[in-house]
């Protein structure tokens, strides 16, 4: 497992690698100030050696529509490259915003990182 972390005002992102699956854990606020940086992080991992991206939302305290767009765009680009972007650990706030936006039905959503890793078949 390789672990690294990038921080900017309002949002830090921890990266963990489990074979060909990357777990991104954004912590803080995903909004119009921080969404571009997080989008670049997601795009960095949509590459041949990566099978799936797990976005762990446990420490995301706030999401706005700008953050929703980044997750949607990342999932669409992943799918177009025959990869998968899945989510786990949604907080009550994030779940509510997802429900209002019709997002709960378009993402695979797991209860924990462990379940998400089990749900993404690895190609080793």
């Amino acid at each position, binding site marked *: 497992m390789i672990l690294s972390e990038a921080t900017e005002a309002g949002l830090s992102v921890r990266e963990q690698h489990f074979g060909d699956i990357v777990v991104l854990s954004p912590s803080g606020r995903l909004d119009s100030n921080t969404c571009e940086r997080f989008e670049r992080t997601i795009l960095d991992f949509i590459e041949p050696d990566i099978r799936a991206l797990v976005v762990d939302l446990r420490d995301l305290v706030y999401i706005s*529509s700008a953050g929703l767009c980044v997750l949607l765009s990342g999932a669409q680009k992943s799918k177009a490259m025959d990869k998968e972007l899945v989510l786990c650990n949604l907080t009550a*706030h994030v779940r509510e915003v997802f429900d209002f936006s019709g997002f709960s039905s378009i993402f695979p959503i797991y209860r924990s990182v462990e379940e998400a890793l089990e749900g993404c078949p690895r190609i080793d």
Partner: protein
Amino acid sequence: MSTELAVTLANDLTEIPRLATLVESFFRDHGIDSGFAVNVNLALDEVLTNIISYGYRDASAHTINVTLVLEKDVVKATVEDDARAFDPRTALPPDIESPLEARPLGGLGVHLVRQLMDRIEYMRSNGRNRLVLWKFL
């Protein structure tokens, strides 16, 4: 304790988290739970992000006035600005049912404001927008 919070913002996205901190404190000081605060903040964020990102035809500095008034059973959040006219009540609802690959990006901000708030009033006069968002306690 005051039942009104008035904040003047610059047309800069970094002003939004600054406002959010003030709004959270205002609600906390009046014994209102954080879930209510986060919903009001999200609605304000969506309105302000639209104004700051798309509302101005020039690159000049502008000010946006935000006022929260706490009444007996309702919070009224007023946003006043000199950006181009935009009535969020007339925006078309976004597609929230298509499958992932066909789901359009965008249009969700105004939709969230409508979902989160109980009443929306809009007026345009003297080149200024005045939006009032109601949320019952």
